[in-house]
């Protein structure tokens, strides 16, 4: 698989599955031994954990979607910089809904092998997201 094909696989997964909620069908892009390094504690391993997490996220933020800001790829790695958008209408990871909208930055790294995603890491501005939702103190505040 070429770098361009790898980029397309990851882009389609985000646009056609994470952004639409068609999570069961998204499994086609993942290897059976896929390892998620970015799951919160308590998620099942593999793609099942991705499905559970994004189902929870989409239930809490019904308008959730990623905007794709940048893609960088080399060899077997594809990096995507995204902006997540969502309005908190339901409970999420034990936090009560605030009704507020947030837009937050993320950078994802996926490793692919034979056209399937085998590993995933993410840096997510969770603090910025929680601050916008009114669930964490602002910088400098205590």
């Amino acid at each position, binding site marked *: 698989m070429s770098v361009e094909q790898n980029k397309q696989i990851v882009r389609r997964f985000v646009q056609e599955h994470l952004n639409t909620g068609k999570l069961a069908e998204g499994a086609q892009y993942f290897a059976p031994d896929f390892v998620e390094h970015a799951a919160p504690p308590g998620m099942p391993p593999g793609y099942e954990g991705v499905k559970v997490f994004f189902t929870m996220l989409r239930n809490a933020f019904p308008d959730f979607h990623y905007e794709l800001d940048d893609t960088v790829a080399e060899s077997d790695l594809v990096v995507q910089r995204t902006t997540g958008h969502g309005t908190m209408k339901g409970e999420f990871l034990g936090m009560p809904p605030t009704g507020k909208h947030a837009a937050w*930055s993320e950078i994802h790294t996926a490793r692919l092998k034979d056209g399937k995603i085998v590993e995933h*890491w993410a*840096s997510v501005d969770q603090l910025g997201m929680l601050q916008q939702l009114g669930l964490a103190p602002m910088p*400098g505040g205590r």
Partner: protein
Amino acid sequence: MSLEENKAHVRRAFEELINRQNVAAADQFVAPDYVGHFSGAPEPVRGVEAFKQFIAMYSTAFPDSQVSFESVIAEGDRVVARLTYRGTHKGPLMNIPPTGKPIEVMATNIFRIVNGKAVEQWAITDDLGLMQQLGVIPAPG
């Protein structure tokens, strides 16, 4: 500049500015019209002096901080460095007094490199994990 040269440039920048705490060397790595988009910074960091002040804030708070690289890739004018910061909270961080706690924080950085210098940077650091490790924000569960 080749992709390999751009990657080497980014590695040297972290080694010099973070691991050796040589903030004065920032001029070698960052262009005069540099813009940095950092999680945890409310506004973009513009220009070399503002960049120096931003990293000096962290080197004051974590004077022994060390970066290790998890992966570094490049394509076109971009370089992506996924890394781990380790250090000890020995100085004030914003208005958080030193706690003496060890920290280990993941981050991913994307750089746009023009003529051998960074003109733009997008950095997402696990600021929530950092605040939890410092005990400023309660850990989940």
